[in-house]
């Protein structure tokens, strides 16, 4: 009888988030790692882009400097999953956002240099950058979806009861909408 009772309790619990909440948390964690990974990929590309650009752009030192500074700031504002909260995500988004705009300014300036646009190495890097911008957008979208699922599980009954009894997770922050718009308007390079 006890066994049967336990069995039924377990069945009930399994639908109550005892498994799905940690799974969702892991999911969020891995998607956050991917977001960071793709932003990191972009930051790794930037020194190479700057190097290939330098020779052509003798008179654009302020534009280049802005990119270097924005990158340095973005590098220092990395957020680990455990530190992920409203404030840290906002800081992270802002740092990456100013890197976005520094890069788009650079791309506008590039238009003035036809020789640069014909440079094979630069061409290669620019396509990698464009691809990476898209990867960032994809990673962000997936993070947003995973967060939605996770936040639903920990705030909507009955799974929210399980959370408050066992896990004590708090809501994880979502990218803000205006940031989303920014991400969609990521620097596009048309040749």
């Amino acid at each position, binding site marked *: 009888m006890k066994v049967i009772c336990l069995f039924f309790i377990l069945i009930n619990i399994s639908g109550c988030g005892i498994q799905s909440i940690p799974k969702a948390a892991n999911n969020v964690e891995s998607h956050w790692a991917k977001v960071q990974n793709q932003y990191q990929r972009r930051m790794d590309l930037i020194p190479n882009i700057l190097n290939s650009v330098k020779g052509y752009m003798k008179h654009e030192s302020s534009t280049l400097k802005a990119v270097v500074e924005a990158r340095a700031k973005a590098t220092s504002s990395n957020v680990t999953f455990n530190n992920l909260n409203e404030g840290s995500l906002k800081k992270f988004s802002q740092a990456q956002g100013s890197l976005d705009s520094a890069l788009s300014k650079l791309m506008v300036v590039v238009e003035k240099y036809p020789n640069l646009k014909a440079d*094979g190495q630069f*061409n290669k890097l620019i*396509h990698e950058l464009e*691809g990476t911008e898209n990867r960032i957008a994809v990673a962000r979208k997936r993070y947003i979806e995973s967060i939605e699922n996770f936040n639903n599980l920990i705030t909507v009954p009955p799974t929210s009861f399980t959370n408050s009894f066992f896990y004590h997770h708090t809501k994880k922050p979502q990218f803000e909408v205006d940031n989303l718009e920014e991400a969609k308007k990521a620097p596009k390079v048309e040749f």
Partner: protein
Amino acid sequence: MKILLAVLLSLISFSSWGLSIPQLTGPVVDQAKLFSSLQKSNLEKEIRLFRENNGPHLQVLTINSLEDEILEDYTIEVVEEWKIGDEEKDDGLLIFLSKNDRKVRIEVGDGLEGIITDYRSSQIIELMLPYFKQGAFAAGITAGTMTIMKLIRGENPDLPKGKKEKENPIITLIFFLFVIFFGAFGKRRRGYLSGYSSFGSSGSSSSWGGGGGSFSGGGSSGSW
């Protein structure tokens, strides 16, 4: 009651997509009707053969219009839905064309990103665009697909560098038409020789599906 709820929920989730994703019927899903039946069966044969011998899952999709959906958003939805590529190798690749938007995209699976880099994808698109400008969509997609196969096999195909136009797309076009025609001719003859037993056992009727490969948004887009 529960069933009703499930039906309602599924309706909601369907309507939240702006543009529906077509059924994965074979290697070439030609919604825009850009391929003749001969061109389609030839390219499908090549893609099937390539998948059997080398592994990677190449996929072609053409549609009429994106209906205001963002190109890159739609293609990633398609590859997620179709689960192109092997689950462990992540070796899927989608060549996508929207006719009325005059847009093309190559969406590269994680496992192929090392070979088909973003830059290479852009070169392949550069190679296809002259065909599209002349309305030779099937020939362009076929040329692009063949180039991708060569790259994956480790051969070194000629790829356009930078902005320069290729020498003469018409010659390449004639060459491909020739290949397509010849390929069909050869196939028909083989069909007659082997009799009826092979009819339906291979080719377009055999199953085709994804394996759960993952994509991160790598690749390149272009327009003409």
